[in-house]
C-alpha cells in the first residue's frame, strides 16, 4: 500500500517539526517543508508520516492512501 504525503503550503510556516520527526520524508527549503518522496511504500514510513502529521503545529500535513484517488487540496 502506498500513501501520498502532502504539505499544504498555505498552512506550512516552515517550523521544521516534520523534518525533525521524519528527516527521510521531509526536507526544508524556501521556508517551507517539502515531502521527499511522493509516496511512502513501507509501513514504517507510513507510521512516521502520520507522526509528522500529528506533530505539525500548523496541521499542514496530510497522509492519504493513494488508492483513495482523492484530491486532498
Amino acid at each position, binding site marked *: 500500500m502506498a500513501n501520498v504525503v502532502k504539505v499544504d*503550503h*498555505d*498552512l*506550512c*510556516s516552515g*517550523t521544521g*517539526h516534520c523534518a525533525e520527526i521524519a528527516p527521510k520524508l521531509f526536507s526544508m527549503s524556501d*521556508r517551507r517543508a517539502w515531502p521527499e518522496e511522493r509516496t511512502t511504500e513501507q509501513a514504517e514510513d507510513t507510521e512516521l508520516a502520520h507522526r509528522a502529521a500529528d*506533530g505539525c*503545529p500548523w496541521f499542514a500535513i496530510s497522509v492519504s492512501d493513494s488508492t483513495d484517488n482523492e484530491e486532498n487540496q
Partner: protein
Amino acid sequence: MSDVRFRPYTAKPAQPWADLAADRNRCPVAHNPELGAVQVTSYAGVKEVLRDHGSFSSTYSNLWPLDAPLPEYKQVLGAADPPRHTRQRKLLVRAMSASKVAAMRPFSEKLADQLVDDIIAAGTRFDLINSYARRVSESHVAELLGIPDEDRESFSHMAKLMELSVEERESHGFSAELDGIIARIADLVRRRRASGGTGDDLITQLCLAEVDGDQFDENEIAALIQLLAAAGISTTQQAIGNLVVALERHPGQRDAYLADIDGLTEAVVDEGLRYDGPVMGLWRRCLASAEVQGTEVRAMDKTLVVVAAANHDPEVFADPEEFRIDREDAAQHLTFGAGIHLCVGMNLARQEVGTAVAALYRRLPGLRLVKGADEQIPGPLVRSWRVIEMEYDPPAS
C-alpha cells in the same frame, strides 16, 4: 540552602544570564525552592518537555503554577490539552498562516509609518513602549480579530491586567475583573451570532465556526478570544522593546543593521527573540512521572521551562551571550515555544516586530536610549523592561 541561583520573584537581575548558565551547568533539571517547582534550563530539556504534552499538561495554566486545573471553559489553546486543544487550534491556523499574514504586510507597514508620524509630531523624546510598541501590537490584534472600536479600550485594559498579574506568584489578584471581561466578550459573541455576522475577521469566524454541526459554547469562544488578545498584545510589545534595547546596547550591530535595513530585518528580529525574547519561562504540570534528559520528574511536580536559558545554551548557540545579527541559526530559538502549542501568532509577531523596528530606524536619525532599560518586571514568565525612553535628532531646518 539550595545552590539554585535563579530567583525570579525575589531577586530578578536585569541580566540573568550568568545565573541561568550556572544553574544549567550544575543541573539542567533541578528543583528550585523559590519556585516550588522543577526548573529546566537546557535547550534539549526545554524542548523535550514542550514536545511531551502527554506528560506535561497545560491545563493547570501555562502562566501560573496553579494547584488545580482551570475550570473547563477556561481551558483554551495555551491552557488546554488535546483533544480539546486540537479542536480549538484548528479554528485558527488558516487565519494566521504565513501566507495570510504576508497579505497583511501593507497594513503593518502603513501602521508603523503612521505611528512614527505621531512620534515626530509630538517632539524628539518618546516612551518606546507606550507611544509605539503597545500601539503596534494592539492595532494588529484589533485588525486580526476585528475588535469593534467601542471595545478596544476594554481589550487594552485586559492586556494590562494580564501583564500586572503575571508579576504575581499566585495570579488572581485580578481574576474577578478578568472574568468580568470574559463575560463581556461572551456578550459580543452573542451579538455577533444574532446579527448573523458576515465579516471575514477572526471573531466572526470563531463565532460561526461549527464542529459536527454545533457551534461552540459561547463562554469557550469568549475565553478563546480573550486568550488570543492577551497572548498577542504584551508579548509583541515587549519583543519590540527588548530588540531595540539590544540594538542600542550593541552599537556595532546596530550600525551594521542601519547599513542594510531591508536585507537584515528578518535576521535581526530572530536574533532579538533569541538573545532577549519576551518569554522567559512557561509553566507545565507533570501528570505522570516522566524523564527529562534522563532525570526523573515526579507526577504532580510543577515544572517551569526556562525558555530564556534554553536560548542561551552553548550546546546549540555559539557564544550565546553575544548579540550577533549574522547568526545563521538564530531562528532555532524556543521563544515561540515548541510542539503542539508553538505560538500560532509567530508569523504575525515576526512581521509586526520587523516592520515596527525597521520603520523606527529608517525614519528617526540618531535614535538613542536616554532612560530606562535597567529594571525588569519581576516573575519567571517575562523579560520586559519597565521603562524605555528614547530620543532622536531633530530634523535639520
